[in-house]
């Protein structure tokens, strides 16, 4: 009785001081813990004060959204009008104007298929068939020539669909190739091993741009007379060659992380090489390397922008063409911020997804 009373009195008496709870406490322990940190916070706040209000004034308060270029020039703010005025060219490039709905629906299909595939519960055989059907429909939508759709040559493809296509097929084809190269590099056959090492190290040692130059200038020389492959496909091949070497190195890391016992156990079950790899080793190895693989896929997505240099009209090149129009010249920061946002959203959602997947797989 006495004890409990004493206890009661104590809790009554010990109320935390205002400074150690709530917002004030948070500010104290996160921004002003120590002399150095306090100075740092004040300096940072001063810089933010110097940067953010002028930026907001430029980007929001004084900005133009649906005006003409002349009105923009008269004002001081950001000229976002360059985006709506050129949006169809930036997104679709030289695709025939009245047929823009076709790449539009193809992109919607691709994005919804990707979103659908995010959930691991749907990773079954049916998903593979869905993808095959989806890719076929997307191909028909882009190319036409079937079901009464008029045909659109691939040199008219451009903008965001081209960026998505180059990166998607780049990853899609580079992945199995990369796995094969990694297996080759780990092989006990000296000839196979040497060829794989040479390929991987050679590709990883040179910049992507040299491969793209090669695709633009040298591939036509490599092929017999009369046989031509269009420029987009050639660039696609270069991207696949490049990405596969990087994927191979990541997968090799995964293969090395699998212990000897796994190989031996698989062999003692009487599995042959293909069965051993397909059923035992690769499922484990590929699971380990999901995070670095997504990292490679993200950089492959960003790297597709390099096709600008061999004059393919991806989304960055269409933006630059829009900027080359004399009436919109000089508004490049606005246009580049817009394209940057597109890339950011794609890459950020990919890396976020990879982080989530990593957590799920660990659990």
């Amino acid at each position, binding site marked *: 009785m006495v004890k409990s009373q004493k206890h009661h009195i104590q809790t009554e008496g010990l109320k935390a001081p205002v400074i150690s709870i709530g917002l004030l406490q948070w500010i104290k322990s996160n921004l002003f813990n120590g002399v150095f940190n306090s100075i740092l916070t004040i300096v*940072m706040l001063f810089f933010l004060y110097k940067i953010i209000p002028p930026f907001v004034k430029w980007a929001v308060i004084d900005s133009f959204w649906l005006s003409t270029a002349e009105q923009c020039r008269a004002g001081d703010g950001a000229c976002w009008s360059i985006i709506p005025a050129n949006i169809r060219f930036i997104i679709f490039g030289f695709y025939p104007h009245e047929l823009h709905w076709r790449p539009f629906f193809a992109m919607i299909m691709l994005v919804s298929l990707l979103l659908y595939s995010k959930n691991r519960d749907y990773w079954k055989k049916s998903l593979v068939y869905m993808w095959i059907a989806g890719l076929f429909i997307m191909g028909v939508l882009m190319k036409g020539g079937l079901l009464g759709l008029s045909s659109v040559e691939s040199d008219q493809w451009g903008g965001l669909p081209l960026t998505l296509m180059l990166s998607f097929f780049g990853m899609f084809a580079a992945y199995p190739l990369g796995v094969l190269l990694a297996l080759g590099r780990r092989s006990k056959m000296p000839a196979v091993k040497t060829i794989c090492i040479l390929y991987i190290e050679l590709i990883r*040692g040179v910049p992507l*741009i040299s491969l793209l*130059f090669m695709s633009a200038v040298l591939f*036509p020389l490599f092929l017999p007379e009369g046989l031509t492959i269009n420029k987009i496909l050639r660039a696609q091949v270069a991207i696949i060659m490049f990405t596969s070497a990087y994927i191979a190195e990541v997968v090799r890391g995964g293969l090395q992380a699998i212990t000897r016992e796994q190989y031996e156990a698989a062999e003692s079950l009487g599995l042959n090489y293909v069965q051993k790899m397909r059923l035992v080793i690769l499922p484990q190895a590929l699971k380990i390397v999901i995070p670095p693989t997504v990292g490679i896929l993200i950089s492959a997505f960003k790297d597709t922008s390099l096709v600008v240099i061999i004059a393919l009209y991806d989304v*960055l090149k269409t933006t630059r063409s829009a900027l080359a129009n004399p009436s919109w010249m000089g508004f490049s920061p606005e246009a580049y911020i817009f394209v940057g946002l597109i890339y950011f959203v794609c890459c950020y959602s990919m890396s976020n997804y990879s982080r989530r997947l990593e957590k799920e797989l660990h659990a």
Partner: protein
Amino acid sequence: MKKGNPVNSTENTKQRVDFLNDPKIRAIIYQIAVLGMVGLLGYYLFSNTVENLNRQSIATGFGFFHKEASFEIGESLIQYSAADTYLKALLIGALNTIKVAFVGIVLTVILGTFLGIARLSTNWLVSKLAAIYIEVMQDIPILLQLFFWYSFFYDILPPPREAIEPVKGVFMSNRGLVFAVPESHPAYKYMAAAFIAGCIAVFFVRRWARKRQDKTGQIFPVFSFSIGIIIGLPLVTWLLAGAPHKMSVPELVGFNFQGGLNMSPEFGALLLGLVIYTAAFVAEIVRAGIQAISRGQTEAAMAIGLKPGQVLSLVILPQALRVIIPPLTSQMLNLTKNSSLAVAIGFPDFVSVASTTINQTGQAIEGISLIMVVYLCFSLLTSLFMNWYNKKMALVER
């Protein structure tokens, strides 16, 4: 008889193994098949190429090296004119690549380390700002960033007449960045020599100090001694040479600046883009490296009585660097390879000079192989250095 049996049976099974089921023979057959396919593909491509070259009458070989290049190069570290040979033009391109890569790597490591430490700061604001920087910069293609900075120089900055002067003696305009530098004087050459001499002296003193410490246990104040020698020697030389302090200050003459050191918009944009982009990756590497060292290490080092500086240099850094250096080298290599994007904004790096050469001579095969060989050399040198460093730093286990 009993002894002979098992031998016989193994011999029998050996004989019974089908010729095609012997793993050794199979491996040989597979390899012959792979080599044959690669060889055939190579031969096919080669014969096509030879035929195409003959048909289009394109010259082969590196004979163009000694022809006159007849194109100007915007900036070069050594004297160059359009009358010089292609070989010299390519050399200048390679030097420009090395220049941008070297300056870029130094700045990237500084900025990246700074950001990586900021990301781990207990200050919420600093940590969050660093996190935003890292996330945003990693997710935007480097080429887009280069275009952005290039347009920053050309579209946003004013012409030289209205140049912005953020700090005295530094002018920013659409002709690039101009800043004051000390006027050339023989004293600076002596100072450079003194600096190198100081570095060599420090190297030997450190070795001697370590030996002495191993023998006698006496600690020599290496750090303060090194700082003193490396800064002091050039300073004394400067004073002895009469302390020249005349500066070459940029002045507006006509439409452009004269004097001072000029950094072209192309170089500036390339450097800014590369440093800002790569620093985001370096920051993540540094953060991971620091986090890899458990707190127990710091506490243990303090418990045996080391000073904070010693804790850092003797305990934390050697361990953190072991984690940091390999990925850091690959980022440096990435920066070097990404510097080839200079071709998109018109900075005359190696790729850009080589592609002009290809356009003029039509010899694409030689040009592209040159690009590949030069970058492969960079990669090879880097990985050689890395292997050496890894061996030096690797955990020595008993």
